């Protein structure tokens, strides 16, 4: 799947492991939480960068103290209507202080990209044929935001206070 990270197409260094695939020793990989729980020691041994893919009903809090040892958390959208990942991404950035890559995977819409970006996603697995201009457009459709979020965008209230007083 093409991967957009920080607004550009990048090669994805991470191998997505099925639950029966052998653990690589020499390249980054992403695996399910269920498998991580079973094979934690092997997964954490070794020097490869590693990531965990969470289902929409799996809270990042389940990663516990292992979170700092992950460089990627992939959050799944089983269908675009399932908006739990917006809260999980937010939680990763705020409560859990995760500074690594938060990757969107699964079925999400172009129209959700702006919201995802605002809540802390910085990488997006997009369908084949998805154009980079679409990504840029998605981020720019709505100029002003009312709510503060983890993206640090200036809110309307802050813009208002910055206006010269009349």
């Amino acid at each position, binding site marked *: 799947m093409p991967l957009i990270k920080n607004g550009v197409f990048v090669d994805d260094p991470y191998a997505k492991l099925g639950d029966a695939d052998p653990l690589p020793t020499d390249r980054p990989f992403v695996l399910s939480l269920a498998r991580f729980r079973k094979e934690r020691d092997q997964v954490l041994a070794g020097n490869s960068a590693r990531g965990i893919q969470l289902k*929409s*009903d799996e*809270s990042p809090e389940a990663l516990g103290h292992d979170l700092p040892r992950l460089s990627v958390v992939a959050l799944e959208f089983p269908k*675009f*209507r*399932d*908006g*739990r990942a*917006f*809260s*999980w991404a*937010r939680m990763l950035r*705020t*409560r859990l202080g995760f500074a690594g890559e938060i990757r969107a995977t699964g079925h999400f*819409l172009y*129209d*959700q990209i*702006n*919201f*995802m970006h*605002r*809540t802390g996603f910085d990488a997006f697995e997009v369908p084949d044929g998805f154009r980079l201009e679409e990504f840029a457009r998605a981020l720019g*459709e*709505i*100029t*002003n*935001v*009312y*709510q*503060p*979020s983890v993206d640090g965008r200036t809110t*309307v*209230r802050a*813009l*208002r206070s910055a206006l010269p007083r009349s």
Partner: protein
Amino acid sequence: MYRYDEFDARLVRDRVEQFRYQVNRRLKGELSEDEFKPLRLMNGLYLQIHAYMLRIAIPYGTLAARQLRKLAHLARTYDKGYGHFTTRQNLQFHWAKLVQVPDMLAELAEVEMHCLQTSGNCIRNISADQFAGAAADEIEDPRPLAEIIRQWSTLHPEFSFLPRKFKIAVSGSEHDRTALKFHDMAVQIVRNEAGEIGYRVYAGGGMGRTPYVGYAVGDFIARNDILAFLEAVLRVYNMHGRRDNLWKARIKILAHALGPEEMRRQVEREFEEIRASGTLALPAEELARIEKYFAPPAFETLPDDDPAFAAAEKSDPDFANWARTNLTRHRIAGYAIATISLKPPGGVPGDISHEQLDGLADLMDTFGQTEIRVSHEQNLVLPHLRKKDLPAVFARLKALGLATANAGLATDIICCPGLDYCDLANARSIPVAQHIAERFADLEKQHAIGELKIKISGCINACGHHHAGHIGVLGVDKKGVEYYQLQLGGSGAEDASIGDILGPAFGEHEIAGAVERVVDVYLARRVNGERFLDTYRRLGMAPFKEAAYAAH
């Protein structure tokens, strides 16, 4: 009322273009219907039986005259000359065309209106007391807070794909005119013993297939913490609300599955964290800045008894009847709150014609009224009329067909569009409202009955709020035939309760008679000036049930 600044205006214009882009992608097939549907719903656009239905947001039910004129223009130009006010203070157009909706939105943006989040699994229109700023029992005007909540909830990045819809109401008085406890979340402005103002937050109320009365999740939230608290509730809901079953996805299910103790614990946890971060602090200056928009008009010093009013009451029986039911005491001497009933005999509850919209705008200009309100009971309210102007106002309303003197009476029925319009409906609701209204047409009989809230829904989604009706009617489909279930004893006020189902459903031509027999029991058995609701609560279901089924 609130006026957009450049930032608000920009957001709404951006949204119009965003929606235009979405419509074009849909027409070209770049979006499937399955993908487009939640996007169009988030812009208030349903596909109904005859056409698309567009639901226009009327934040906390407040409108200006120029907005009425724009709605009249839209009704003429893009629809069939009328609109329908809903139980969430919004307006619906029932004959919209998808290809024209972006243009309609652009026109709405010209008068600071939009259709954002009037449907979809997101935070919906913020409703508030239709008597805000005028009611004698008001602690504080709820609308500044409602406006702040509106902005916080608009295109919220985390809460735009909730398990299900989320409805918020705000009340600023002791008497609840907004059905707070039937909302997903509600804020009641309260005063503590020290006289300080704070917010009681309810959650977990809802209508629909499994109605629930909400409970307090926050007893006294400080002013500057309120957004942090509301965000905490939404976060708990977005994370843990059920996503496996459409009928169990509202917060009411979560709130009652967890129970108050656990729900409060989870909300507290999120709240403490958000509050500590300071990101959603609501500074006093910001609240004061918004409050300025809702400053009351400059009231004149007037005597509370007005000779012109008194004379008209004596000489004009129609005016006297109207004054009797449709006027509510204003907090300022010499003023009155007028309810404009949209339930004329033989009419469709909540409907308004383009001529009436324009006529009301003219009336507002003539009498210096900067605001008109929509109530969740599908009527309109002029909140700040001088008593001396009332006879002339009444004459103008009469000429417009807007002077029906039945506010709060049996024919002031709340009714959803039902199967005549709505794709979700199981039965027609409007003809039933008309049959029932016909039975109670006699005004003296209505006065003899007194306060009676009849609410009718055409399906389990309960847009007619039938669970909160003193008498509630639910249309059902039994083997392809329309039947009507009768419920008694519901209330949407501060004494919130869910109506009790009486028994087997009635046929279309039986239901009005059953309702009449039920009311007859009340008339025969009431004591001490009880309302219907009080008598029902005192006697219980048995005598009413017996009478309802007596003709079988």
